[in-house]
């Protein structure tokens, strides 16, 4: 007996209620607070801020809580909120050489002005589960090395003194930095838009692409010139005042990947650069981003385009995880009208096929019945 599918609204409401129930889980376990998420799941919060392009730890924590820890869902929540915010201006470019550094390492020099600072890193931890963390035990205060005050030059500047590395590059005076979230994307794109897309691109996708370049799919001979993590000041030029005012500080991770370059018809032999910059502390993302950024400069530097990581349209069209998850997951929406059309065609073609078989073999009736 056919029962029309009615009551979609009630089903949706009940589903939402059940979701809220499951999100909260066992009521005898205390609810996790936003402060706890911000303080104790900080790297997850940083990833959400980065890929949502919104620097607000508390809102990112709220998104993570609401999403039950599903990172892409949390990124989506924060992005959807970001879209509704008015733009009151564009900040001055941040100056990472003025960063209050918490971690800074270079793989290309043993020592360098400003020094190497390990900072809070997993790098040399032994990955042994720590039973002490099963309870809320005392944890010693951290000891931070005295960071040198003042400007810490970037490795790229040190190499630039010798003229062996490409410069930061100059933009024409009338160049207006694009805004990926306010203008339609068009290919081929300028590097500013491309870097914006990479900065909000999916960490896993960029990681895999960066990895592919290391394994020979567009190898770039990379060295980690420098990774630095710390607080930088964000300045906004206020036209009425005529000078820039500070909006506060944000934590960022910057990676400068230095890559060997033999030269081409377009450029002399020198070191070239790949650049990564993300909110919060996320070396993996910043490093992957810088590898992919460098690979995507193939056209600009006159290199052969032979691998996926060099293909701008392929990389940028598929790097956004909110878009990707939407289109992949939309397959669960009803498609029965189109499926009906396909059913009809396949049945018709199948009937013709059976007919032909019958003609050829003289007796195909049994197989037809079996197929039905």
């Amino acid at each position, binding site marked *: 007996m056919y029962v029309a599918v009615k009551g979609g609204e009630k089903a949706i409401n009940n589903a939402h209620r059940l979701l809220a129930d499951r999100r909260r889980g066992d009521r005898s376990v205390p609810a996790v607070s936003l402060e706890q998420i911000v303080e104790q799941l900080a790297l997850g919060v940083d990833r959400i801020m980065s890929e949502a392009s919104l620097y607000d730890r508390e809102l990112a924590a709220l998104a993570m809580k609401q999403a039950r820890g599903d990172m892409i869902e949390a990124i989506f929540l924060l992005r959807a909120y970001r879209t509704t915010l008015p733009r009151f201006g564009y900040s001055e470019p941040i100056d990472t050489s003025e960063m209050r550094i918490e971690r800074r390492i270079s793989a290309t020099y043993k020592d360098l002005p400003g020094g190497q600072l390990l900072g809070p890193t997993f790098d040399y931890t032994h990955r042994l589960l720590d039973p002490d963390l099963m309870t809320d035990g005392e944890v010693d205060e951290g000891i931070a090395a005295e960071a040198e005050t003042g400007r810490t030059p970037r490795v790229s500047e040190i190499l630039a003194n010798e003229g062996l590395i490409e410069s930061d590059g100059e933009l024409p005076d009338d160049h207006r930095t694009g805004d990926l979230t306010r203008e339609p994307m068009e290919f081929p794109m300028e590097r500013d838009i491309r870097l914006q897309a990479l900065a909000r691109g999916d960490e896993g996708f960029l990681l895999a692409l960066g990895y592919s370049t290391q394994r020979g799919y567009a190898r770039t001979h990379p060295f980690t010139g420098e990774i630095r993590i710390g607080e930088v000041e964000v300045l906004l030029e206020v036209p009425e005042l005529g000078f820039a005012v500070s909006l506060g500080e944000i934590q960022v991770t910057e990676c400068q990947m230095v890559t060997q370059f033999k030269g081409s018809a377009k450029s002399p032999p020198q070191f070239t650069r790949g650049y990564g910059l993300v909110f919060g502390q996320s070396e993996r993302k910043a490093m992957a981003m810088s590898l992919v950024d460098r690979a995507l400069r193939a056209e600009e530097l006159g290199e052969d385009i032979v691998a996926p990581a060099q293909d701008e349209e392929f990389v940028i069209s598929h790097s956004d995880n909110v878009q990707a998850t939407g289109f992949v997951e939309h397959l669960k929406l009803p498609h029965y009208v189109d499926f009906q059309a396909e059913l009809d065609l396949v049945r018709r*073609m199948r009937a013709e096929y059976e007919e032909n078989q019958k003609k050829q073999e003289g007796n195909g009736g049994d197989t037809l019945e079996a197929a039905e």
Partner: protein
Amino acid sequence: MTIQQTDMATYNFAYLDEQTKRMIRRAILKAIAIPGYQVPFASREMPMPYGWGTGGVQVTASILGPDDVLKVIDQGADDTTNAVSIRAFFQRVANVAVTTHTKDATVIQTRHRIPEETLGKGQVLVYQVPIPEPLRYLEPRETETRKMHALEEYGLMHVKLYEDIARNGHIATTYAYPVKVEGRYVMDPSPTPKFDNPKMHMSEALQLFGAGREKRIYALPPHTEVVSLDFEDHPFEVQKFDQPCALCGAEGVYLDEVILDDKGGRMFVCSDTDHCEKRREEGHRGPLAAEAPEMQS
């Protein structure tokens, strides 16, 4: 924390801010001026996922006024979950009147179907579009397909259709069947079954297509020529069903196949639920109408 309380009053009418609506309306106007041409627009993140109709929702939000009457269908039905959800969204953010009756609606947002009832002057049909580029599965690069459109280079599409015939004896495209608009642009009609293609031709209604994830809007103004691609010896044909709707007895409409049991029992009913209900109210009965639940109007 700077987030406002989740009071919908803090959002603008129909959710989008007026600047965004203006940007989208400009894209719509351009699309109307160049029928079938895909206009890039700065698609916004909407509070529903990409793939759920964010393009259609943005178009609807940009054209909706307080006096409009909105109908939302998915698979031809007003009561599929996503249609219910989108309708509820606009009731909430625009407090707009809604209907399930095709005739009473001024704006109809749809996914995968065109209503059976002929649309009239003053009505707007908004399609949700997943992949706006009809050439996408033949050439994945946007840089290439834009060139092909600019040069009116549609040979690849004809070769594809020809190869279908050579291999299968049929054009093996049953939905999202490509059309040519006013003799110029080849256009994707969105994944509607090809059954619906003829309804686009010379329609009195304005037809708008929104692709959110792909950031494209295109349009068919009223009275636009829309021709499904075909060959002289293999003319375009729509699907035909062997039986009428089991509930309302309608013929020449698109039907859903409903599985009744695990022994091969099935029935065919109208995909357009409003059309079916209206016919039954008028007293039409199909062979299995007695078994259907009582109508609730």
